[in-house]
């Protein structure tokens, strides 16, 4: 395992940035406007029916779940101040925090937990995370502040699946008769004001927030500025106070310029690019051809070209020092060996393949194309929009797709989704099937001893590294920039602003 020096330097710079040099007393008040890099701030305002990172960040300001992530992405109690797990792993009992008020003024009680979890489980709600909680047999209200969740069978990743705004606890009175939500109510530091024209999400300070004096801001406004250049101008002119996704090509000059006029955060990210191969049909049903791709890839070059050296190269999503980090060598490029493997597979004269991607990842696809072509492939590129590509991926009708994925709190989320048929259609698009891997993943779910689980995942990891159905290309950095008067802004490992120790609740404006 090696990290690029730039990555290490960036990580250090980010760590320095996170330490406030002067401890100032936070001031109350003010409106903070956040320019997000997508065309919409959030895909809907119902916390149980959400998609996408931007949505999670925005909605996490008003919706909270039983559990949360801390700054290092460990699971910590939240609306439940403690929990216990029965010895057989079947019953999870949560003690709720007392005195937590919903934005409508009513106190949150165990009945609300039952209502919220059952709403997510109801297919009519159409929650994309329903499957995460499918293992629940029933939710039992023991008293106002105690709730027991009974599982159908022991399921080690269960706690991780309860974290986050998609499992937010909401009051039943905030749901319309038809099951939709038009004015979401939660327990978060900010309360929903309105979602103007489906464009600007306006959130106001919740005076009765359960965590002491937080938050400091009176109002937070999320507004979409999808155009890169327009986003930078909006930050410089003060139209917005903070932006996500600073364009990579600007990073080298911005990092070097101390007088740029705003704070800049460049931190190791969790979003990774991958090259998914269709293992259900030739040529990628042959493991040798997939290994040839794995060896033909120059990940360092991809990372340098796409992130200007601010990303990093790795073969797994957990950092050095993390419990779930697997032991493994990073694959090194070996074009000669890749050619040999291709020849062994009967493609000594070259192999025609099509690499598909949507516009967001087309630059990645082009670099992959040129690297593969140096090793005897004859790759062509096809671009389509997400809806069209998703349909072909679902039907396993493609050669190779270059796409992206993110971080998972539990290794089950990462490995079961990509390497077993129960994974989502567009992650399991490669159709990789390996009875040994499936059995190991199944066992790991039932295994409650973390060390024993880890050993099982190490075996899964080694197998899929060798079989190479979807090699990781590189990790993109998290980049954000904000004006000097925005204080105590810190982001988490995922580049979001919603976890327990950081997040917008702590931000204040020095003005």
């Amino acid at each position, binding site marked *: 395992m090696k990290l690029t020096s730039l990555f290490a330097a960036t990580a250090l710079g980010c760590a320095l940035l996170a330490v406030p040099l002067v401890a100032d007393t936070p001031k109350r008040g003010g409106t903070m406007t956040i320019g997000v890099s997508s*065309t*919409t701030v959030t*895909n*809907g305002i119902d916390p149980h029916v959400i*998609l*996408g990172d931007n949505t999670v960040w925005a909605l996490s300001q008003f919706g909270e779940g039983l559990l949360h992530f801390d700054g290092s992405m460990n699971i910590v109690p939240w609306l439940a101040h403690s929990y216990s797990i029965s010895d057989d792993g079947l019953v999870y009992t949560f003690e709720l925090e007392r005195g937590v008020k919903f934005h409508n003024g009513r106190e949150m009680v165990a009945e609300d937990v039952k209502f919220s979890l059952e709403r997510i489980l109801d*297919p*009519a709600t*159409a*929650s*994309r*995370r*329903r*499957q995460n909680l499918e293992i629940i047999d029933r939710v039992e209200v023991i008293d106002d502040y105690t709730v027991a969740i009974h599982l159908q069978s022991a399921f080690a990743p269960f706690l991780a699946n309860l974290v986050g705004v998609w499992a937010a606890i909401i009051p039943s009175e905030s749901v319309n008769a038809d099951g*939709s939500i038009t004015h979401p109510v939660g327990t978060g530091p900010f309360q929903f004001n309105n979602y103007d*024209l*489906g*464009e600007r999400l306006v959130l106001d300070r919740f005076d009765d927030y359960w965590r002491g004096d937080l938050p400091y801001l009176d109002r937070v406004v999320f*507004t*979409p*500025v*999808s*155009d890169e*250049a*327009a986003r930078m*101008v*909006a930050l*410089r*002119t003060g*139209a917005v106070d903070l932006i996500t996704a600073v364009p990579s090509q600007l990073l080298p000059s911005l990092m070097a310029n101390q007088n740029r006029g705003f704070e800049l955060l460049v931190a190791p990210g969790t979003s990774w690019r991958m090259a998914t191969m269709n293992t259900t049909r030739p040529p990628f049903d042959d493991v040798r051809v997939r290994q040839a791709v794995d060896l033909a890839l120059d990940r360092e070059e991809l990372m340098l070209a796409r992130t200007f050296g601010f990303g990093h190269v790795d073969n797994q999503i957990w950092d050095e020092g993390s419990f779930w980090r697997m032991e493994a060598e990073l694959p090194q490029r070996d074009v000669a060996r890749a050619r040999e493997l291709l020849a062994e597979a009967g493609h000594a004269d070259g192999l025609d393949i099509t690499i598909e991607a949507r516009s967001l990842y087309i630059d990645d696809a082009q670099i992959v194309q040129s690297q593969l072509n140096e090793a005897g492939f004859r790759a062509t590129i096809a671009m*389509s*929009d*997400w*809806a*069209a*590509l*998703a*349909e*072909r991926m*679902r039907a396993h009708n493609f050669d190779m797709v270059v*796409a992206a*994925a*993110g971080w998972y709190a539990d290794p089950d989320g990462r490995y079961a*989704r990509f390497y077993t048929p129960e994974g*989502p*259609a*567009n*992650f399991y698009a490669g159709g990789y099937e390996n009875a040994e891997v499936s059995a190991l993943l199944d066992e790991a779910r039932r295994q409650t001893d973390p060390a024993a689980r880890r050993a099982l995942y190490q075996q899964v990891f080694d197998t899929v590294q060798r079989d190479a159905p979807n090699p990781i290309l590189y990790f993109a950095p998290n980049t954000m920039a904000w004006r000097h008067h925005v204080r105590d802004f810190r982001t988490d490992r995922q580049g979001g602003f919603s976890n327990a120790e950081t997040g917008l609740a702590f931000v204040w404006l020095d003005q």
Partner: protein
Amino acid sequence: MLKYTLRRLLQLVPVLLILSVLVFSLLHMVPGNPIDVLMGEGHSDPVVEAALRERYGLDRPLPVQYWTWLTNILSGDFGTSMYSREPILKLILERFPNTLLLALASAVVALAISLPAGIIAALYQNRLPDFGAMAVALAGISIPNFWFGILLVLLFSQYLGWLPSMGYVSPAEDFWTAMKHLILPAVTLGTAMAANLTRLIRAEMIEQLSQDYVRTARAKGLGERVIVGVHVLKNAMIPTVTIIGIQFGGLLEGAVLTEVIFAWPGIGRLAVDAVYERDYPLIQGVVLVAAIVYVAVNLIVDISYRYLDPRVKLD
């Protein structure tokens, strides 16, 4: 004229019917479906997908789906967006005035530039003012709209600090702030339209200036100002108005890039997002409204011919 207008409106009915069938068929022929988008990247769940298909009637045969949509539309029900679950009519009505405002302001900018530029170019044909105006017009046609918009933002927002770089404020809320927000997007869109119009007005003016009636007018001693300002200009306006009408329709739909750069909540972006999301009822609703507006604008154009040229009979 009333009869003419009524007949034109009646002609709209088969146009819209054929259009809706075409759009509906195209939507279902294009690869991709709303369920994949609704589930999002990294999720799929047969149970939820079936529930969604049922909720939006996607499990029924296509002719039934179309018939349901059509009968609902006839009773004024545009349906709800699959993605945001908001009523489609509400989504369109919220955004349509914004787009109309931007389109009107752009048309004003375009005319304010192209009328004087086109007239001067024609009057000084093949002389310095003509070359100057045509060079600017050529540049205007060649420069990509979105790039010009960014340049305007850099100059007026970042360096001079005169105008806001993005965003929309309702004129009902704060008229002057709204106008400030309107200027840059309107100039961005308007200049692109002005470039074409300038060339057109110039050509029409030159054509008209060589007509017999101009010679007659000059012979009977009419002032050049009256000849150009009243007679020639009015005749030159007929094709110009036609082009404005066609381009105005384009402004309504084609403003997408400008709307993206300036975060302007218009109907263009609504439509493009709907296409990416395969939000079938929303796409159909937007296309329907856009078609009605397009036909209406061209009706106004046709009626205005009668004013510009009394010989034109509207029947």
